[in-house]
């Protein structure tokens, strides 16, 4: 039981610590036009971007294919964010998707399917 308490406290501290750290700096926002076509793409992109350094929030609007990213300018930049989207298998503005990643996407996420 004691082990649990110690573990639990450690995790709680860790989570709070991470949050506190993230709150200090100012964030910037950018809109990126992607080749996402469905809700599965939305899930893939939002999850993938959440794991990128400096990204605080990523939200995709499927209908307009627009991805809004809130990020910390001192940790990342727009080019890196676009590349991250490409690595997930999607176009980002003019930058074309990474071919290998694109080939691995589920069929419903392929560009030629059109927004659905």
């Amino acid at each position, binding site marked *: 039981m004691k082990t649990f308490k110690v*573990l639990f406290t450690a*995790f709680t501290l860790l*989570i709070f610590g991470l949050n506190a750290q993230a709150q200090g700096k100012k964030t910037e926002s950018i809109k990126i036009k992607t080749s996402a076509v469905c809700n599965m793409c939305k899930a893939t992109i*939002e*999850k993938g971007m*959440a*794991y*990128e*350094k400096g990204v605080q929030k990523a939200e995709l609007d499927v209908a307009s294919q627009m991805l809004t990213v809130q990020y910390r300018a001192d940790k990342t930049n727009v080019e890196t964010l676009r590349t991250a989207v490409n690595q997930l298998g999607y176009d980002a503005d003019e930058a074309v998707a990474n071919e*290998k*990643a694109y*080939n*691995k996407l*589920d*069929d419903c996420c392929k560009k030629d399917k059109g927004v*659905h």
Partner: protein
Amino acid sequence: MILALKSRKTLFGLLLILLFPAVAFTQNLNGQVFDRSDKNTVLPGASLVWAGTTSGTLSDSKGTFTLPFSTQTNKLVISFIGYKPDTITVKPKELFLRVYLEESGSLQEVEITAKQDRFDAKTPIKTEIITSRDLEKSACCNLAESFETNASVEVSTTDAVSGAKQIQMLGLDGAYTLLTTDNVPALQGLATPFRLNYLSGTYIDNIDIIKGTGSVLNGYESISGQVNVKLKDPEKADRVFVNLYGNDLGKWDANLNVGHSFSEKLSTVLMLHTAQLHNRVDRNDDGFMDQPLGTQYNVYNKWKYTSGRFVSEVGLNALRENRIGGQTSYKEGSGAASGNYGTESLTDRVSGYTKLSLTSKNKPYESLGLILSGSNHKFDSEYGFRNYDGEQQSALARFIFQSAIGTTAHTYKLGASFGHENLRENFEDTLMTRKEYIPGIFGEYTYNNAHNLTVVAGARTDFHNLYGTVFTPRLHVKYDLNPNNIFRISGGKGFRVANPIAENSGALVSSRRFIFQEKLQPEEAWNTGGSFTRYFTLGGKPGTFIADYYYTTFQNQVVADMYSVPEAVIFTNLEGRSFSNSFQAEVQYELAKGLDVKAAYKYFDVKSSYEGKLMDRPMNPKNRFFVNAGYATAFDKWRFDATVQWFGNRSLPTIADHAGNVETNRTADPFSVLNSQVTRSFKHWDIYVGGENLLNFKQKDPIMNADQPFSHGFDASMVWGPISGRVIYAGLRYKLK
């Protein structure tokens, strides 16, 4: 005049109100279904259903269809055998809808579902899925641990020394469950004792669990159910995947998967696994190692080739495993003559399979499939003074033709198979051999009315060279009361040839004599049952409720009698009744955002006749509870998981101590096991820490007369609870997509 005008307006309004619903009701959606690659080919018999409803229709011989617009949804689901299903949003005034379906090109026997619901709503046979996400919650690294977060399949240890484990379904031994990898029968016969160790968790994409009889396409076995392990798909495999695991017993595992696509057509995945334990651990101070020392090297290579209507898959596996168990003072290779008790086993296994499938050019629902598989399993083992070694060669060829009668509401599969088993066992210097040649034919008919009823009727006849003609009929019916309430019933016969020593390897680690009183006949049983699945929404959160009941009754069974004589296990054919009643009720619900909870209650009444007396199958608790809770933060950055299992009272076999005092009617007390895990994910890395049996429950004296292993009362097979106590582990995963 004004009044008249007013009334005219009212009349007009009234008319509108009257007419409008009428219009809405009579308005139909018309359309036609085509092949995407060849737009002149129409698809007759495609199913069109409004999403989430039971209203739908089938396309006619020209591929055209008419169905009323739905008031509930504008999403139309179009599916057709041999094609990828599609969902289309229909515009309110769509006059004529053209649907283009894309060929799926996948083998019909290896349909890969992207959908990861744990209880599939579509399959006519009740199928529960352990997803790859579920697999990550278990304490790595082989199939035995993969069921830790699942209520339907349980894993038990056969004895306290050798480390052999068995799965259990419906309260029946793992031998009655058909184990398949990618729908190819695998790890059967003499491989049974350690088979769960031979598939690394990192090879597995997901696992399908089918309770009750399965499809006749996979043979006459599967009496209590089928566990189909879907291995990583070369087309979707990560480029690099690494897993490292270690626990406080000193056991460690290492895995490496490498995936590569040579072109759009050809891809491969190479998977390597090793498991090592070189540390002698004896935490219950009985002089015996709690876990056997072991070294395993395992390699699996899978290839896939897809070219239009032709798909081919090849899988190759080789493994070598060495295990040493027994007293902590036992030295490898020293044998029982050294005065120390030990168990040793060395296993070499190679296996492979290939699948080829060809789809007809203009009839995508028609296909030919050929599946070839083979294996060679060789082992050499010692249990104290007993030696047990053997070899088994297995080969199986299956040919399946699939087509439809008229429309795809009526589909059928016809096929032929040829199986060969060549077994040689040498037990205590008695040689036993068996050669089986099993040609067989089979057929399965599926009726699907595209709304709410599916019937699958199958039968096979095999011409066994030793046991004559074996007829195996099976029936599955699925009825959707509505999309959220689904009933399924199943019934059928199963047949199998038992391998009594391999299936009771636990008893080898005891002073019990193995007595074969008569010529053992194949086992035969009927299994009938049904389930009710309800998908519900409570407080805006989705949940699932499942209740099922299965009854299995044996016409013949190889009974391992450990009741009648204390110092023996007597193998006989069944005389009298033997049955299993199994009931399970389970709820899965998302209690709060990110917090998923599963709770299950299980009741098993499993009895067999021992010397004419109907008694509980030993070691089988009647009542069990299972609770699993998993919490994940946004995007799974943190994952917490905990499982508690409670086991009720259970009957134990008769024993005698070395003074010859006989004890009957023994039972074991209830106990609980708690497992927990925490995972932190980064972009390419996962780190996990966990504990098994955190409540630190240990069975008292799992080995009877451990201090005198060569005496009459020595018995390590009376194990019903954990031996090691709490085990803490940690590991990391690296993924490059």
